[in-house]
């Protein structure tokens, strides 16, 4: 009898404790969840609904047109042009920045005196307003009086028409993005390099392997997780950003620098075609969702976490 009562009390106590635990959890994470539900998840769903309408800024209501926008997209050569540009930009910037960033990290790993000053300088480009980066480089690359063209002419070469030619505009965009974001890869890889045990390298040296052999067989494999992390971040941020393009080339000339993000921005803001812009954005989200799912599977965001 008393045993049964005790057992009953035990169960109630467990339930009370569970309730209190849930209350505590809710007090801590509840506000952030509710906020994100209202101002991030809901807008995302809203955006999906918009993509099924023909809403424009001029016409306030917009009617349901089903998959019409998506159908139009698939036959819109400008959409495919933008997709192609995004793909080119991503592949070029990510691979360039990975290679250059790793070289920088290895170079700074020499631990030269005073190198912290240069490291401090190199961090700055990624913090500053992308539009200003665009303007800055439009000045540097100005065909008539820009510093870069003057320098190239001074050593006897002919500078290309950086932003004015369809052949060069995308390359220029890639170069400027690389100037701004290579330091990101560098910082990530350098941080990883600092944590690697020196014995591994010493052991390789003792075994008589040269610098490049050690680099290829020992260092790079150990850096792989950091490189993957940096690559994913650069890919996603490059994919979704449009403001550098806004400041640098405004998608031109002849749409050669119009990426998907800029294409969606133009449809939404300039042409005020909200439904179509939302459909483009959702195509991007689709790519990102597939991307992040793969990311979460193969590269957990919070490695080494003890729970």
């Amino acid at each position, binding site marked *: 009898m008393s045993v049964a009562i005790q057992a009953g009390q035990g169960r109630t106590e467990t339930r009370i404790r569970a309730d209190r635990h849930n209350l*505590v*959890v809710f007090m*801590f*994470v509840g*506000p*952030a*969840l509710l*906020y*994100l539900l*209202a*101002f*991030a998840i*809901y*807008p995302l769903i809203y*955006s999906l609904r918009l993509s099924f309408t023909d809403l424009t800024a001029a016409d306030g209501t917009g009617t349901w047109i089903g998959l019409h926008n998506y159908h139009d997209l698939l036959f819109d050569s400008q959409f495919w042009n933008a997709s192609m540009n995004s793909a080119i930009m991503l592949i070029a910037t990510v691979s360039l920045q990975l290679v250059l960033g790793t070289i920088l990290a290895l*170079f700074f790993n020499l631990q*030269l005196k*005073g190198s912290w000053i*240069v490291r401090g300088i190199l*961090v*700055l*480009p990624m913090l*500053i*307003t*992308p*539009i200003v*980066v*665009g*303007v800055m480089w*439009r*000045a*540097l690359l*100005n065909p*008539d*009086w820009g510093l870069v063209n003057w320098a190239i002419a001074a050593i006897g070469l002919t500078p290309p028409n950086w932003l004015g030619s369809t052949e060069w505009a995308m390359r220029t965009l890639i170069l400027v993005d690389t*100037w701004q974001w290579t330091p990101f890869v560098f910082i990530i890889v350098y941080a990883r390099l600092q*944590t690697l045990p020196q014995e591994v390298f010493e052991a390789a040296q003792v075994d008589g392997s040269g610098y490049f052999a050690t680099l290829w067989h020992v260092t790079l494999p150990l850096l792989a*997780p*950091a490189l993957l*992390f940096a690559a994913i971040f650069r890919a996603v941020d490059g994919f*979704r950003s*449009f*403001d550098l393009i806004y*400041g640098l080339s*405004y998608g031109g000339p002849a749409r050669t620098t119009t990426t998907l*993000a800029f294409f969606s921005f133009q449809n939404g*803001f300039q042409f005020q075609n909200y439904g179509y*812009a*939302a459909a483009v*954005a959702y195509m*991007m*989200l689709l790519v*990102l969702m597939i991307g*992040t799912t793969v990311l*979460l599977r193969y590269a957990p*965001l*919070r490695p*080494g*976490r*003890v729970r």
Partner: protein
Amino acid sequence: MRNPVGRFIAYIVLILLGMVGAAPFLYLLVLSSKRRIEILTQVPPHLTFDWSTISRTYNEVLYSQGMLAFTKNSLIVVGAATFIALIIGTPAAYGFSRLRFRGDESLINTILSMRFMPPIAVAIPLYLMVKGVGLQDSYPGLILPYVAFSLPLIIWILIGFFDEVPRELDDAAMVDGCTRIGVLWRVMLPVMRPGLVTAALFAAIFIWNEFLVALYVIDSRAFQTISLGAATLVSAQRPIDWNIAAAVGVVTVIPILIFSLLVQRYIVRGLTAGAVK
């Protein structure tokens, strides 16, 4: 590196790298000190400074073009949004770091993946929502969306910092009779200062640079933020006076440069947040 020739070359490379990083900023600074005509005729620009030209250009940019007012608007919006996001985000990050509950892992992943969300996917709905409650052309109309943008970033950075604080600290405080909230407030906040500064720094810079939502929400010049102001003044769409454009650029980035030099040691921590240790 022991080889003196190698050392010498390495230092040359180091100096060149510093120049590649810094020269564009300095060039912008020099251009902003020149008269319009000098930019076109002096190639490269001479390093002579004419203070009356400089003061005329910056007066024009700060007052006539309104960059000073835009700076004030940005400071208000950045300050309020960062503060609110920290108040909401810090307990959430603590909760995700310490408390276990059903579905916690997938919830964390959902929130963290919001860091990857393209702003263009939500800018129009956010604008329509803000407009729906009559908040276009107002500070709250910007602050509400910006808190949502910075929350995932802040939670992301702070979880990393909380994970590094030993759990024994919580347990000891709770044995002494502290509640969870007491632990967060009295025990965690003091040791989390670097984390809070880092999170605030990155949220603030993100909001300072954001201009897409502002482009939609803000119509009147009175509420323009600095990056929106800069974007409209120096857009690649239209011909510009380069001395003015350069000064607009300088005014836009100088606060970021000063701010990030003051808290320099936190920048690397923020950039590597979530990276493999």
